[in-house]
């Protein structure tokens, strides 16, 4: 029904592309949500000495590996954007697929990590540290998954040379997902 776009979509009175404005709005909303989770975590952590003991059981190596995976995937997202800027849709799509591979790797590694931890008795109800751990990382993982799916949709259009501006937009979202992890990693894995 709404195949034709309204003229409203085509105007840029403020000089900023509409799609970019929309994505930044989404990112801003998410920053506040994750900000709430992280602020709650930090407040709790400061009030409970015993958490350090629980936090000692997270696997810093796996966390570091996943950090590397995400950072690399952000790199391929940047390269995808550059390719899209040059009009090279197929190359942008390939680089986006590489980013998705990074996302999937991240999620698989996390799957193994959590299985380990759960079988060792560290479940979501073991203590409030673990409740926060699974909740914060879980919400983040949901955003990784959602981002990956959207990325596949953008990539399939980019492959045909269509909607190339969306490569930058999903890239912005992906960097945000990365930055959230940059905050989570030290809070959950390093602060022991």
């Amino acid at each position, binding site marked *: 029904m709404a195949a*034709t776009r309204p003229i409203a979509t085509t105007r840029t009175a403020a000089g900023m592309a509409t799609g970019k404005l929309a994505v930044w709005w989404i990112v801003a909303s998410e920053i506040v949500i994750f900000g*709430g989770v992280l602020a709650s975590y930090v407040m709790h952590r400061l009030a409970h000495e015993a958490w350090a003991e629980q936090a000692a059981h997270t696997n810093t190596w796996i966390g570091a590996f996943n950090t590397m995976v995400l950072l690399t995937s952000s790199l391929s997202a940047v390269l995808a954007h550059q390719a899209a800027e040059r009009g090279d849709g197929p190359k942008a799509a390939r680089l986006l697929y590489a980013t998705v591979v990074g996302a999937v790797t991240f999620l698989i590694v996390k799957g193994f990590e959590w299985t380990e931890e759960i079988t060792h008795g560290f479940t979501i109800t073991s203590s*409030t540290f673990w*409740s926060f751990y699974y909740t914060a990382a879980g919400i983040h993982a949901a955003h990784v998954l959602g981002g990956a799916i959207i990325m596949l949709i953008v990539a399939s259009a980019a492959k045909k040379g269509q909607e190339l501006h969306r490569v930058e937009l999903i890239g912005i979202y992906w960097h945000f997902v990365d930055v959230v992890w940059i905050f989570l990693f030290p809070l959950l894995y390093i602060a022991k």
Partner: protein
Amino acid sequence: MATQPSAPAHDAHDDHHHEQSFAQKYVFSTDHKMIAMQYMFTGMAMALIGGFFAYAFRMQLAFPGEAVPGFGVVSPADYNALVTNHGAIMIFWVAMPVLIAAFGNYLIPLMIGCDDMVFPRINRLSYQIFLLSALILLASFFVEGGGFGGAWTIYPPLSSKAQYSLTPLGATIFVGAVGLEFIAFLLGGINFITTAMNSRAPGMKLYDVPMVVWMIVVASILFMASVGPLIAGAIMLIMDQQLGTAFFDPDRGGDPVLWQHLFWFFGHPEVYVVLLPAMGIVAEIITVFSRKKLFAYRTILYTVFGTGVLSFTVWAHHQFISGIDPRMANVFTVTTLLISVPIAEMVFVYIATLYKGSITFTTPMLWALAFLGEFIIGGVTGIFLGASGADIYMHDTYFVLAHFHYTFFPIAIIGTFAGVTFWFPKMFGRLMSERLGKIHFWGTIIPFNCIFIPLFVLGMGGQHRRIYDYSNFPELAAMQPVREFATIALLFMLAFQFLFLWNFFRSMFTGPKAGKNPWNSCTLEWTADSPPPHGNWPEGLPTVYRGPYEYSHPDHDEDYWPQDEAPKEQPA
């Protein structure tokens, strides 16, 4: 200044719409005006439900233990569920959808001169999610254990453990419904901000934008910037409820006060989220009916920005005696009293708009003026509560309740009536009855004050909130006649609302036809047909040449100068 007209709306549009089915036009529309109507009617329906709840619990308060006609006997559990859902419904499912989503969706494209919102399908999705959230909330009354009854503030551990709330399913459904409503409005905000920023008509600078558009945009930003922590909190609360985590369980290392901070960090800016659109509506109306430019437009704008920022620094005034460090209370009482300064500024500036005007008292104008008057009372009574020392006594009493009804009622109800009576001719192409409108106005305002002034007195007398029967408290028993009086006043007020419904629906079908601009207003929406067709201006989108309130300009014959009227050629 550019004078070339914008391209006409695509003809391809019109071809499609000859064959639009009922479902396409009314149910699955992406047209901003239809989505606005959907929000408005859903909000009005929820208002009837929320109002019915108020009727039931006030009847219980006036005549404790007696069966309420249309409801039955109100048990203590019923009472708590009624007040809880009354509050939540009025804020989340009436004030927000009507003031922000309905008026925002309807007015923004029309007032900035474009054909629709930037993302019509996201717009439609936001309504669908909103409707779902309303249905989910209503469903909570029919599950085992009934609807949640732990107040709209949902404090744990009462809300997090079924053994305390006795509403195992209702509590989760309630929180889920609220969370979903948040998502709907975050999505809606995408459209408000991108459309207002980017889709303005050629020639419309930021300071030429009508105030209500600015207000809705700022409200959306405030909402977005404040709701995140509460979404996080809601997720944590649902996990406590259903998965047995202990985020808020003090027995296992959690902290119930954390919820309070997460809630009120949002809760306080939220009141400005709903206040701003109402003030925007009032601005549009008082300019038209005093034939005067809005006094100090930029001052209002900067004050609004300032208030928005300040609103993030006051939240713990809701928690003065709730166990926060008492030293923190001093910080928050300072910020809270300070915020009275920009609000007072806005009130003064609005009143100054009347100065040297030529005022006509139409129904919309009466509502707009009543908003100012009643809100002043609401605002000043907040000072008693913001002053920490006084709040020790006033917290959780009916004084608080009367204060926030003197702010929320003007916002949600008076603001809505003002906006509806003002833009009705544009929305439906017909005029409402002025006579019925004025009777409805007085029949609402007088009883409103009769309900809530007595409640201030009850609060001063130490009567606490959320108690279903005051006969258990000997010191409060003497005030029973006051409770009865307030309830009778409510019955009168509710009765007069039927007059509004009659006026509204009858005028929609048989009211006298309205032209494009029955109020002789300057803003762009009044240059489109009444009602505007799909695409709003099929003959070509307008270009703007001046600000939105050029009333009574000395260089112009007419006492209004529409924004899109091209300037006359200057003689050589």
